[in-house]
C-alpha cells in the first residue's frame, strides 16, 4: 500500500483543504488531546513504539527527541519545522506542504502540546512561494476553526504557528543553522552542546523536526504506534516518502513501507528511462555515498539496510543513474555544490570543499595527476569529523564514495585525459 500517512489526502479533490483532511480523520488526535483523552506521556509512548525516525536525514528517533524537551521548564519554548528541503534530490516536503498542509499543522500543534510550546515556526526554503501560500491558506482555515491560535477549541491550550521563508542556503537544513537563520543571522551552525532542546531559537528550548516527521504524527496517533511500526520493519517503523529522480521513466514521490525492496521502488517509478542500464544509485540525497547497481538491486529501502551497505537512507532522495553517466563529472558537480554551500565557519570545510572541487575540476579538464586521487581521498578524510556540523561529512562522504566505487574512472581520465564513459 502507498500514500497511507503523509500523502493520505492525495487522491481527494483539493487535497490541501481542511475538509479533505478532516475527511480522512484529520484533527481527530488534536481533538482527543483537547478532550483530555490523550496526554503527553501517552503520545511519546506511541511515538517511541512506532519507531518513527527523523525524516530529514539523520534518522534520530522522534519520540526520544520529544522526550528530551524540558516541558516543565518555565518560559517560552518553541517547536520548529524544518521545511528547508535542501538536500539535492529531495522534493517530498514540498508536496506535503502543497498537498496536505493541515497534517503538518496538526502534527506541530500536537508537538506544541507535548512539549509545552505555544509558538511554532515552519521554516520553508526561500523559493517555496507556492507551498508558502498553501500553508498560509491552511493556517487561515485552521485559525478560523480555532484549531490553532489562542484557547484551541475552547481549551487552555494555545498554539500559534508562523510560516517563515529562508533565503537560499543549503546549510539552513542543519537544525542549528536553521535556528540561527530564523533569528535573522547567517545560517552558521552552532556547536553542540548545548542542544536546541536546551538552547534553541532565541535561546529557548526548541524542538526541530522535519516536515515529514511532524506530518507523520497525527496518523500514528490515530492508528496507534504499533500500526505504524508494522508498516515498516523493526527499528525502521512506518512508511517513508522516497523522492525518486534521475533516469527513471516516472520520477516522483512514493510513500511506501520502509523495507520495500529497491527494485520494487524502481518499478513503481516506471523502471529505467528509455530502457537504459542502471549504473548506480545515490540512495539518500547527494551527501550519501553512491552505490553501484548490483549492490542496490539487492537492498531494501530502510535505514539499516542502506547503512549496512555503506551509504545512508538520508532524506530518502533516490537518484537513479544510468550507464551514460561519467562518474568524474558527477563527482565534480557534487563537489562544486558543497564548495558553494559551505558556510565558511570551520577551517576544514571552508578550505577543504574548495580544495576537493578544484582538484576534481582539474582532473575533468585533463590536468589530473595520478597522486590526485589519493590526495583527494586524504583531504576528504581530513574534513570528516572535524567540523561543527555535518556539512563537512556531507561534503566528504560522497567524494569518498565516488573514489571507492569508481576509482577506475578517475584513473582513466587522469591517464587518457578523457572520460571513460563519454569518450
Amino acid at each position: 500500500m502507498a500514500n497511507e500517512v503523509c500523502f493520505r489526502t492525495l487522491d481527494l479533490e483539493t487535497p490541501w483543504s481542511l475538509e479533505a483532511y478532516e475527511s480522512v480523520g484529520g484533527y481527530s488526535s488534536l481533538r482527543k488531546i483537547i478532550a483530555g483523552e490523550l496526554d503527553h506521556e501517552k503520545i511519546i509512548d506511541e511515538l517511541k513504539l512506532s519507531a518513527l525516525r527523523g525524516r530529514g536525514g539523520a534518522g534520530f528517533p522522534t519520540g526520544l527527541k520529544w522526550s528530551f524537551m524540558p516541558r516543565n521548564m518555565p518560559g517560552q519554548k518553541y517547536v520548529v519545522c524544518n521545511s528547508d528541503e535542501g538536500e539535492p534530490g529531495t522534493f517530498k516536503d514540498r508536496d506535503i506542504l502543497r498537498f496536505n498542509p493541515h497534517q503538518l499543522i496538526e502534527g506541530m500543534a500536537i508537538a506544541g502540546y507535548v512539549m509545552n510550546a505555544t509558538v511554532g515556526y515552519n521554516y520553508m526554503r526561500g523559493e517555496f512561494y507556492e507551498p508558502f501560500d498553501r500553508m498560509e491558506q491552511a493556517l487561515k482555515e485552521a485559525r478560523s476553526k480555532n484549531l490553532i491560535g489562542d484557547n484551541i477549541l475552547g481549551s487552555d491550550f494555545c498554539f500559534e504557528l508562523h510560516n517563515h521563508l529562508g533565503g537560499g542556503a543549503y546549510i539552513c537544513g542543519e537544525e542549528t543553522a536553521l535556528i540561527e537563520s530564523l533569528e535573522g543571522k547567517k545560517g552558521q551552525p552552532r556547536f553542540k552542546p548545548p542542544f536546541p532542546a536546551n538552547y534553541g531559537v532565541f535561546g529557548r528550548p526548541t524542538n526541530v523536526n522535519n516536515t515529514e516527521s511532524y506530518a507523520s504524527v497525527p496518523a500514528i496517533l490515530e492508528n496507534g504506534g504499533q500500526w505504524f511500526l508494522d508498516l515498516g520493519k523493526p527499528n525502521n517503523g512506518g512508511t517513508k516518502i522516497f523522492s525518486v529522480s534521475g533516469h527513471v521513466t516516472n520520477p516522483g514521490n512514493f510513500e511506501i513501507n520502509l523495507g520495500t525492496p529497491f527494485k520494487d521502488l524502481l518499478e513503481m517509478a516506471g523502471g529505467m528511462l528509455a530502457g537504459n542500464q542502471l549504473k548506480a544509485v545515490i540512495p539518500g540525497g547527494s551527501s550519501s555515498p553512491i552505490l553501484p547497481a548490483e549492490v542496490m538491486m539487492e537492498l531494501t529501502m530502510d535505514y539499516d539496510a542502506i547503512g549496512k551497505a555503506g551509504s545512508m537512507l538520508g532524506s530518502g532522495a533516490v537518484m537513479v543513474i544510468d550507464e551514460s553517466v561519467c562518474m568524474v563529472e558527477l563527482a565534480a558537480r557534487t563537489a562544486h555544490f558543497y564548495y558553494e554551500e559551505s558556510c565558511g565557519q570551520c577551517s576544514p570545510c571552508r578550505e577543504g570543499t574548495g580544495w576537493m572541487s578544484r582538484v576534481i575540476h582539474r582532473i575533468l579538464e585533463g590536468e589530473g595527476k595520478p597522486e590526485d586521487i589519493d590526495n583527494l581521498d586524504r583531504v576528504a578524510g581530513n574534513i570528516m569529523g572535524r567540523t561543527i556540523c555535518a556539512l563537512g561529512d556531507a561534503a566528504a562522504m560522497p567524494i569518498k564514495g565516488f573514489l571507492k566505487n569508481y576509482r577506475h574512472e578517475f584513473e582513466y581520465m587522469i591517464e587518457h585525459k578523457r572520460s571513460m564513459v563519454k569518450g
Partner: protein
Amino acid sequence: MTDLNYDKSLHLKELIPQSAIDEIEQWILKYPAERKRPPIMPALKVVQEHNGNYLTTEMMQAVAEYLDVPHVAVYEVATFYTMFNLNEMGKHVLSVCTNLSCSLRGSDKVVEHLQNRLNIKLGETTKDGVFTIKEVECMAACGGAPMLEVDKVYHENLTEEKIDKILSDIAAQHMPAKEEDNNGK
C-alpha cells in the same frame, strides 16, 4: 552630531511604497518583539522585490536603520543567502537548477537553449534588462527535472518548447502597451 528627532525608519519609507512597508510590518509581528534581527531576511526580500530583483548598499542600510540593527548585520545576511542579488538583475530572473538530478535530466541543454535564445551567458542580463539567467542549486523539484524558477513560479519537466513559451509569455508583458490599455479600461 546625530539628530535625536531623526526618524530612522524614514530612509526605507522613501525607498519603497507604503504597501511594502506594511508587508514588512506583517513579518515583524511573527517574531518576539524584543528581537530585532529575525525580520532582516523578509525585509530584504520585500525590498529586493520592489527594486527589480536586487539590493543596493543604500537599501541594505535603510533596512538596518528601519529595524534598528547594525549595518553589518544586514550585509552579512544579504551576502550569505543566494536569493539576494547585489548586482543589477533583469526584471525576470531565470533561475536554472543544474544540480545532480537536473543535470542527469539535461539541465545543460536548458542552459544552452536559454543562452542561445537570449544571446547571453549564464549570469548575464539581456540588454533590454528583461532577463537574467542565474545558475542555482537544487530547488527541491527534482521529480520534475530539469526545472527553472522565474517570478516565483516553478517550471518543471522543461523542454525546448516549454522554455520558448515561458520566454514569450514574459516578453509579451513587456510589449508596448496596447491601445485598449491606453483607453483606461
